[in-house]
């Protein structure tokens, strides 16, 4: 079933390329819906909910002597991210129906190819498949930006490709060193199986070696996330990409980075992570505040949302490096929630752009009057993004921050961050409200600008069409459901997260034996 999830979109992509161009979008939509169906079926068949096990596994031997065995499988965390991908993809395709008018066959072909690669990343159980898919995501995205992007697309696509490729190469070097070290330790038997390598990394590598591995992985995944200061490809790529490209980029591609951190960095180099977590946390916090302030002075709405992704993903990384269950759960939720709300914001901006051909806040204004349905969705998703309780963004942001706050070395809860990290990062909450509401105030509210002309040629009515509403409603429902029932994800991933973090408890026990003493003496709750 895992192979099906990866190969089906690829198959769809080939079918589209050989079939006539006028059928391209319908075929793409059908394919993505079928894949969505398969992934939902997989979720029902899946046995690992609430357990830390890997299910739906299967492997294909390639060159066994060199350890090249392609293995796939899913644990609860990866399956949730696969579901996010298969959920967003039909929407992205449906959302492009009107925007993409030239070379449609290639466009939908690349989009489905991209889906195959992203699913492959989440389902891979060995490094070879993982890395191939991880790199292969760049190719479709490169063409999507370069061919269907806006004015500055050539520069943006090349920068996107080279920047992230360079980052991944360093990660590859890290992976190869690890595999080499494994082969050394096992008498020349190579293996690229993730679990075997993880065990090896934890048990055999010295702190020094782990730190180098951490650095190598962090560079690759950090570029992808993106972490400050390696984020500059993102605003450019986002701004220039076509709508669906931005949606997939924000919704799933950035999550490859955080997924990589969760899947490789946390389990593989725990001691180095404990050592360096404050450093990563500080980078995240700088990213949160720095990007938020930059958002404030943007005039291009799409660029603003792009920078807001940098700011938001900072919380996600911060939660991971809090190294406790709440933080990691919060971070996983953040990956989903950011995909839903920011994805929706990119859709909305795309829909507006198709009608007015501008994204400049100085030229826009008072759209609530002309496009009330659009405006309602806009305000809704902005609030989800700001983190209004009751909607999804809040839960993840709250969990990440409270986890960071309590992860103090001296308190009852072990960890290497602490109140100051959370207190400073939490300023990002205020700044997020600031830049997003200022944007809403300028674009959605205020007097309608007389100069703003709806483009009759676009073939779209003034307000949203049924197709566009169909794109947005599932996302809105997702925001509400995950806002009031985050347990759907938390409960199902709890054990997987606990397994990942188990190794850290050992480390904290050794380094902070006094951590438990706080309990007995101070709280009567203990006695009761």
């Amino acid at each position, binding site marked *: 079933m895992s192979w099906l999830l990866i190969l089906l979109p690829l198959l769809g992509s080939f079918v589209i390329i050989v079939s006539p161009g006028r059928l391209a979008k319908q075929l793409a939509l059908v394919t993505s819906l079928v894949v969505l169906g398969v992934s939902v079926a997989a979720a029902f068949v899946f046995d690992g909910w609430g357990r830390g096990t890997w299910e739906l596994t299967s492997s294909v031997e390639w060159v066994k002597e060199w350890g090249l065995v392609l293995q796939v499988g899913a644990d609860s965390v990866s399956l949730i991210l696969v579901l996010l991908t298969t959920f967003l993809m039909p929407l992205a395709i449906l959302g492009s129906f009107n925007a993409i008018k030239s070379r449609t066959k290639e466009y939908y072909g690349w989009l489905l190819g991209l889906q195959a690669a992203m699913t492959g990343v989440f389902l891979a159980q060995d490094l070879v498949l993982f890395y191939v898919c991880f790199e292969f995501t760049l190719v479709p995205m490169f063409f999507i930006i370069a061919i269907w992007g806006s004015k500055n697309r050539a520069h943006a696509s090349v920068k996107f490709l080279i920047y992230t490729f360079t980052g991944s190469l360093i990660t590859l070097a890290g992976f190869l060193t690890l595999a080499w070290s494994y082969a050394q330790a096992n008498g020349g038997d190579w293996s690229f199986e993730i679990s075997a390598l993880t065990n090896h990394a934890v048990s055999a590598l010295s702190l020094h070696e782990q730190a180098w591995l951490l650095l190598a992985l962090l560079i690759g995944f950090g570029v992808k996330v993106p972490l400050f200061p390696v984020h500059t490809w993102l605003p450019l790529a986002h701004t220039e990409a076509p709508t669906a490209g931005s949606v997939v980029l924000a919704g799933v591609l950035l999550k490859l980075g955080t997924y990589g951190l969760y899947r490789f960095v946390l389990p593989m180099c725990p001691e180095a992570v404990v050592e360096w977590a404050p450093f990563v946390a500080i980078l995240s916090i700088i990213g949160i505040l720095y990007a938020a*302030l930059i958002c404030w002075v943007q005039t291009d709405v799409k660029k603003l949302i792009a920078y807001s992704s940098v700011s938001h993903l900072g919380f996600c990384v911060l939660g991971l490096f809090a190294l406790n269950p709440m933080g990691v759960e919060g971070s996983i939720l953040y990956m989903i929630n950011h995909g839903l709300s920011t994805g929706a914001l990119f859709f909305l901006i795309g829909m507006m752009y198709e009608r007015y051909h501008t994204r400049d806040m100085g030229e826009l204004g008072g759209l609530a009057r002309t496009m009330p349905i659009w405006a309602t969705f806009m305000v809704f998703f902005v609030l989800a993004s700001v983190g209004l309780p009751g909607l999804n963004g809040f839960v993840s942001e709250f969990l990440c921050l409270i986890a960071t706050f309590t992860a103090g070395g001296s308190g009852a809860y072990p960890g290497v961050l602490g109140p100051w990290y959370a207190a400073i990062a939490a300023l990002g909450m205020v700044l997020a409200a600031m830049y997003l509401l200022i944007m809403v105030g300028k674009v959605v509210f205020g007097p309608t600008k007389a100069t703003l002309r709806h483009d009759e040629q676009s073939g779209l009515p003034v307000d949203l069409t049924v197709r566009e509403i169909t794109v947005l409603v599932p996302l809105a429902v997702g925001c509400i459901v995950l806002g*009031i029932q985050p347990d759907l994800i938390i409960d199902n991933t709890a054990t997987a997260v606990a397994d990942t973090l188990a190794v850290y408890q050992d480390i904290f026990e050794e380094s902070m034996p006094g951590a438990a003493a706080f309990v007995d003496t101070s709280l009567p709750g203990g006695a009761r």
Partner: protein
Amino acid sequence: MIDVTLQLARIVQAMPPVPASEVLHVSGQWWIGFILWCPLISLVLCGLCAACRVKSKLPAWITVFSLAISFVLTLLLAFMDTPPERVELFKWINVHWDGGSFVANFAFYIDSLTILWMSFVTGLGALIALYASEYMEPDVGRGYARFFAGISAFLFAMICLVMGDNLLMLYLGWEGVGFASYWLIGYYYQKPEAVAAAKKAFIVNRIGDLGLALAIYLIWSTFGTIQYNELITVLDAGTYLPVYENWSVQAIPYLLMLAAFGKSAQLPLYVWLPDAMEGPTPVSALIHAATMVTAGVYLIARMYPFFLLAPESLHVVAWVGGLTALLAATIGMAQYDIKRIFAYSTISQLGYMFLGLGVLTTYGAAYHVFTHAFFKAVLFLTCGAIMHGFAGQLDLRKISGLRRMKGWRIVSWTMFIGCLCLAGFPLTSGYFSKDAILAEAFVSQGPGFEVLGWMAIFTAFLTAYYTFRVWCRVCAGEVRCEPGDEHHGDDHDAGTHGGEFHPHAPRFAINIVLLLIAAGALLAAVPYFMGNEVEHVAGGWVADMVHDSTAAEGVPGHPEHPASALHGAEAHHGSILGMDPHVAMYWISACVGGLGLLLAFWLHLWRRQDADRLRSWLLSRFWTRWLPVAMENKWYVDEVYHAFIRAPLWLFGHIFYAIDRYIIDGLFVDGTARLPRLLARCFQPLQNGMLQSYAVTMAGGAVLIALLMLLMLQFFTGGAVS
């Protein structure tokens, strides 16, 4: 694999235990949930009305009806007279791991404090929705459904805030009411001022929310729970714990304070409230006078044990409250827009409430919240009626003699009742509730509380003055009016018939609501005279309600000191001018109230020219010129904030953006990308076509490679050994 169970067993010891949540009785009364669900259903239905473009008053009736049900259920709850109880609705955020958990569910915690707040929140909510059904009439079919959806959303959030069983539920309500307030202030979204005001309200509130969020983190990391019942169990355990001396416990009240000051518009975060008057007037009455702004008082009352653990924090609360009361009163005196005057008066009265909390009379604060909710709602609603009838005119210099106009009698006399209560005229509800606070300022021991008490008395004088300034100008005097330029909403031309202006008097819905709430304002004095069921507690029904809740003044760990150990030794020997403070305050407050009232009648009714003369006299003197100017310009607080907070941040935004483009992206990223080309340029001269130089380069290269290999060998063998 690593032995997971062993690992988890170790975490068990590392995490503090969470008290069992079954401390209190979990009620099975199914209908209690409907207090919350009614506004939610109404929100959904109003949303549907908006989507279907309903062109009738249906949304208003849906809202009024559902809020009335909520109110009736609340009354039912109040008469059941149950001990504190929890009602679980459903699970929300639960993270469990072996050895610990974070639990925040959708659940109610119902004690007497909850019921006290709920009674006026739902009651006034229903009445004001009824009022709005007429007030918003011109918008039927356009923003009407959106407006009532906003009101329903607000009530939903407010009920979450007040009834929530844990701090996260309170936080949900806290941000929810902030959002509803954003929604409704920005109701006239075509008006740039309204949009700016809405944005400002949300952002300033967010600063407060930051404090609340941090307080929640701190409470959870210290106590391992954020549920009220579990916290109370810990705090009421009867032993003073060493952890109370930690910085974490001592810092909690200050963070809560930040939240409360944001939501309740106190110094330094009060600036959003006056601007919030851009919203429709029923919104100002409901959200920005009666209910939402008292959430800060509720928060501190609810979390009072934490404040008692850090007594200095209460001194800060008292001083901030007292100073805000004075500052807002001085600004209110000098404004001309009657709605803004009442906005500043709200800030000032909220200041009194915080003063009450600070000087250890949670009862006084809660009682003042209760009475203020009624009389301030009346005042705003009469303002709304005037605005509605005079095409948005709110300048008190432009309307006069309202009580003699046809159809305006109810408005002018209900306004008179509201003014009497606000001015603290003897035997009105505001008189008793304000006295409870003022007297306690002289009873409690604290830094400069005596000064604070006299300051509060002076503020009471100012209050009486500016309140009756409005009434004398608008309702009394010669009959005269100028219409406003706004036409109640967008482009509706109410009242202007052929160039000549006829104010249209309020009709049934507005009048009946004004009468009911004015009656409520007068009757709010009754609880003061009700007998106390709890011994040693004076002050009637409200005092009983407060005493039974978390706001009771018992210091955690000292259950034998119910009357608060912090009052000091001479607690009830404090005196003003040789009399018992409570008795003395009846006289003092009556006197200053009367004086302020007389001054207002003199300057604004009997001899109006004197007021202008006084102003021009002040302006003509160099030494006094600053006073009226600064007061009329609101002490330039907005400007100061703009210059010292907004502008620097904005500048940083630009600087960071420049750094991002030119240094990080331009220099580092693009610079690195150019490196290969630069490098190539460096080695270009080598390709010069001369045989000798190729030979030299080759030899050099060979040496280099050999060296490199040697180094690598050393590195790898070294690595393997270690």
